[in-house]
């Protein structure tokens, strides 16, 4: 089962269009603002990175396809803000009205939102961006696989935890045989964390696949694809 964001291997997208390497970081002003508003809202503490990825993936296939990158961000952000109760549908309606007026006649809305004390302050920005959000954890099961070991990914790429839920096993790599390349330690399981089901950390591995295992017409016999996959995505493969 494939979903619109899970596009690895898809046909028909046309050429990649390289850009000058010294071009602007943000193609237009609103791209920069979309990024900044999204990151600033993260500090309200109402979701994690997996929740916000899932919010982008849950855009309707039609919207996901026609929206540019930062349109996906800002639209998913609006959805998340309402779903978590930070804003209401009426707030969005009002915001739209005011944007339409353009007059910006800033009629004072209530200043004191219960979460406003969590607002990201300018002097906190550097520290927050530098701190990041590490995903590795001490707890969780022991590693079941060793580097070099042969494994097979689950045949079905959809989330095993939640029907239609978030997962990071791409469809093109489901049911494929590969080898453990590297063990990354235990990492938060997005399939769980995206749905408020806890971090459920698990061993995470880089798993190497021959291109010929993934594609009927690989470009070159020696080519490979490596994916980072959690232990629950993998089964041991008997060595014949």
């Amino acid at each position, binding site marked *: 089962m494939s979903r619109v964001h899970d596009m690895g291997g898809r046909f028909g997208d046309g050429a990649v269009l*390289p850009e000058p390497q010294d071009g602007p970081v943000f193609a237009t002003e609103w791209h920069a603002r979309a990024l900044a508003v999204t990151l600033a809202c993260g500090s309200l503490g109402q979701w994690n990175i997996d929740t916000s990825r899932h919010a982008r993936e849950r855009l309707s296939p039609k919207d996901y396809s026609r929206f540019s990158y930062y349109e996906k961000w800002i639209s998913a952000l609006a959805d998340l803000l309402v779903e978590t109760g930070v804003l209401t549908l009426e707030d969005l309606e009002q*915001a739209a009205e005011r944007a339409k007026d353009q007059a910006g006649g800033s009629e004072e809305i209530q200043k004191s939102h219960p979460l406003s004390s969590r*607002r990201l302050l300018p002097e906190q920005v550097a520290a927050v961006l530098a701190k990041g959000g590490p995903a590795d954890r001490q707890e969780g099961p022991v590693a079941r696989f060793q580097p070099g070991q042969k494994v097979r990914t689950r045949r079905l790429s959809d989330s095993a935890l939640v029907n239609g839920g978030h997962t990071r096993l791409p469809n093109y790599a489901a049911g494929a045989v590969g080898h453990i390349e590297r063990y990354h330690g235990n*990492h938060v399981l997005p399939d769980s964390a995206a749905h408020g089901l806890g971090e459920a950390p698990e061993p995470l591995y880089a798993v190497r696949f021959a291109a010929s295992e993934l594609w009927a017409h690989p470009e070159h016999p020696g080519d490979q694809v490596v994916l980072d996959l959690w232990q629950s995505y993998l089964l041991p493969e008997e060595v014949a």
Partner: protein
Amino acid sequence: MPHDHHDHPHALLPPEPALRVKALETILCDKGLIDPAALEEIIDTYQNKIGPQNGARVVAKAWMDPDFKRALLQDATEVVRDLGYYGRQGEHMVVVENTAEQHNMVVCTLCSCYPWPLLGIPPGWYKSDAYRARAVREPRKVLAEFGVTLPPDTSVRVWDSTAEVRYLVLPMRPEGTEGWTEDQLVALVSRDSMIGTGLALAAASVIEGVEASNQSVEGTAE
């Protein structure tokens, strides 16, 4: 045409993207949930402070110092943290080395994961459907679109960033750069060479570039 506002509240916002951002930004500011000065600070960070120059510094050091390179390939997160390159979207770093036998290339097919502290914000093409869809299936055709053709006996290994681990490619050091300083080497390390859709620049291209930029500086002075 009716929209389902309850499933997709964003449909209530203006369809035009710049206006959509503005509408959301305004109401969040009014409610005290975001601070405009903090937004400026975030934009300034990614526009002016964090970018591919960070990754290029790491690559140049690896070219110059075998011990640094060994440590980098062993545990990149710690090594780049010591250089001050750590943070959001770079919490778990792995550096993969290009050799005559193997070329590495990085993609994120499921979204657009990218090592921000080392390379900054990803370019448009990295986030495009075409790159996300095709890099894993036909990396050589994609490389050709970047003007890169690999020798037939070089294999390609594509890294699909499906978790919170971020990958940086260590490109091959160009010939004829023996004895160059770190700053001279940095100038050879393009952003695309650290994603794997390019190679490091040839020594000659930078020497010419230096002359060209000197000329233009003189031209400006006149």
